[in-house]
């Protein structure tokens, strides 16, 4: 019962956010970057359902476009982190020896940086932009993927079907590709789902610190950052983006739990 609830609720939440993002690419109530100095900081009312910000821009429209930016960045970042992490993890786990030690030393050095600090430094170098964030967060999260993959590979190596493949005379590369890699799919699916949530969170945190997707393009994070001075006078500016982030994360987490239950019946 829990399982189905997770799946349905998580799926619905993510679908809603994704739907908002998709809608934003064809239609928003107002132009999200259009300034209207006569309607600055308007409280939520009829034409502006979620109010306007300090430049008189429509919060709802910005929120919708923010959804699309956030999801795109998260998706591509997860793909980048996965591609990098899987390569490193497979190589390190399967070949062991000095390959493993060198790759893992690098990995640990990366892990020793808290992800957000790493992204912070890198973003200052390459300059904040959507793809800069993808690269920085992708690099920051790749070590976690590499760890999981390497762990899976190390435990799979000990499984008898991998030994059986070797006993058949199959080459190492074939065994890696045919028997080891496919069996890493389940833990990676679960990881990718959680990571999707983390990236949304990290991206908004970076934006909040002023290093995320640059304005005037709206993201939830930079909307929140801009709302900070108006916490007392224009509360709605702080509420809406936060709710959106929380809802997407909740959806991701629920879906991740459901996937974990389905793919890994142990827990």
């Amino acid at each position, binding site marked *: 019962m829990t399982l189905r609830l997770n799946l349905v609720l998580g799926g619905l939440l993510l679908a809603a956010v994704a739907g908002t993002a998709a809608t934003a690419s064809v239609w928003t109530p107002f132009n999200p970057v259009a300034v209207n100095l006569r309607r600055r900081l308007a409280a939520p009312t009829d034409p502006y359902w979620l109010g306007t910000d300090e430049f008189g821009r429509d919060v709802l429209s910005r929120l919708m476009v923010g959804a699309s930016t956030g999801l795109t960045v998260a998706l591509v970042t997860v793909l980048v982190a996965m591609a990098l992490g899987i390569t490193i993890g497979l190589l390190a786990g399967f070949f062991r020896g000095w390959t493993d030690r060198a790759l893992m030393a690098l990995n640990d050095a990366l892990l020793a940086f808290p992800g957000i600090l790493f992204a912070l430094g890198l973003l200052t170098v390459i300059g904040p932009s959507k793809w800069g964030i993808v690269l920085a967060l992708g690099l920051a999260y790749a070590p976690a993927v590499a760890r999981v993959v390497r762990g899976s590979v190390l435990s799979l190596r000990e499984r008898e*079907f991998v*030994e*059986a*493949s070797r*006993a058949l*005379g*199959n080459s190492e590369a074939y065994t890696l590709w045919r028997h080891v890699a496919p069996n890493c799919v389940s833990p990676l699916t679960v990881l990718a789902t959680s990571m999707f949530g983390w990236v949304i969170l990290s991206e908004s945190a970076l934006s909040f610190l002023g290093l995320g997707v640059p304005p005037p393009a709206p993201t939830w994070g930079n909307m929140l950052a801009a709302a900070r001075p108006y916490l007392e006078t224009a509360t709605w500016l702080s509420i809406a983006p936060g709710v959106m982030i929380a809802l997407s994360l909740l959806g991701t987490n629920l879906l991740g739990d459901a996937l974990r239950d389905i793919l890994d019946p142990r827990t």
Partner: protein
Amino acid sequence: MIAPLLAVSDLRVGAKPDIRAVDGVSFSMAPGEILALVGESGSGKTATARAVIGLLPPGLAVTGGRIAFAGAPLTPATLRPLRGPGIGMVFQEPMTSLNPALPIGVQMAEGLALHTRLRGAEIAAACRAMLDRVGIADPTACLRAFPHEFSGGMRQRIMLASVMLLRPRLLIADEPTTALDTLTQAEVLDLMVGLTREQGSAVLLITHNLGLVARYADRALVMRRGRVIEEGAARALLAAPREPYTRALVDALPRRGPPAIPRPPSEPLLRAEALAVDFAGRRRFFARGRAVQAVRGVDLAVHAGESVALVGGSGSGKTTLGRAMLRLVPASGGRVLFRGQDITAVRGAALLPFRLACQIVFQDPYSSLDPRMRIAEIVDEPLRLVPGLGAAERARRTDAMLDAVGLAEFGRRHPHELSGGQRQRVAIARALVREPAFVMADEPVSALDMTIQKQILTLLRDLQRARGFACLFISHDLAAVGEIADRVVVMQEGRIVEEGSRDAVFDAPRHAYTRALLDAAPRLEALVA
């Protein structure tokens, strides 16, 4: 008639929708009696026992019937004070039945502190005495030690000590020795029976092994699919089973096969010469720990078409030797010769002829099949490397092989859709599909139920007869290999201690270790006689 110690009537245990794990079981036990509950996995024997002590796993619940202990009905309220001094329990898995985070002394003392008036030093003294009784060398040190510092057999003794310390009137023993090798198994069971006799405790022994029943139990109940199908005095039951299922169980007990046909001496197919295998110690920062010598210079030859059993307790090095001969672990000394050619250092493609000719069947059918592949793919995969084989030919041979192991209809399925026995058939099919000259079977049946073991062994023997490959059969159970082995090799501590034809070894064992192994593994002939 004495009042029964335990009376179970019409017990039903089930899980929610419509699963009936135990479906109307009734029996009673007299004080001091040893009652065996026999059945294969899924028969409901464990659920029955756990229902008695109220420790059903999450999801299962008692749905009907009555349990009375010493004349009083057992309810959750009356049960708890009875746990320990009234009813004790020994579990199957010695690796998880003691708390790894607490010293043994603490775990043993808990029960005494709760149920007796003993305090401090008295408790420690009682614990030491009991540990001494179960054969722990240094009880004082043991009290301070943690469970992981002991082997499985030792842990099971400690477990027994901890339970018997409270002098329970009824001891429930749930497959207490299944996870141990034959030799240890006998020692632990002897100890358990001895202790319970001393204390006058009754024992409810749950087992799938009829051999144990004959040896230790007064009475036995045979269970199948949640019901008791046959009941009687243990020996009588074994000697003259009434139900077909009971008969099948009895038939599944190992017995010696027909005498081996003497074969002309020939060039050995696969030969180990002074083969040694060391496992490197743990890596440290600047040095390594001491190496473990798993195999210490062994000579062993397997001839074409013959069937050799390699027997030894856990840690004897038998599995390592087998894998080293197949070049799956690197040898640290000696040579491996295949058809007279030294292959110890051959690598890559040059090794292919050897790989094509030698195959392996693993112990655990759950781990030896890639869960993501279909059965037909698994069986087909070895053919990939056979030179000059077309797709059609491959498919034909795969189908034929699956047919030969009785799985013709299963090609499209995944391993998890198959039972343990079926999976082991797949593993055998995978090993044989390339028509190898040599197959190593590493404990191929020890993870299976008795009747299934019998089927797999029969299958292996039949296939060997039909196809004429040589077979190295690795087992800890000397009796079990009696059926198929031409020759028996006994290993202890990395060395071969005895070697000879099966009948010679079985009838006139020369080495003490071989004798101990033979004694520990009861054969039916000996039991019912």
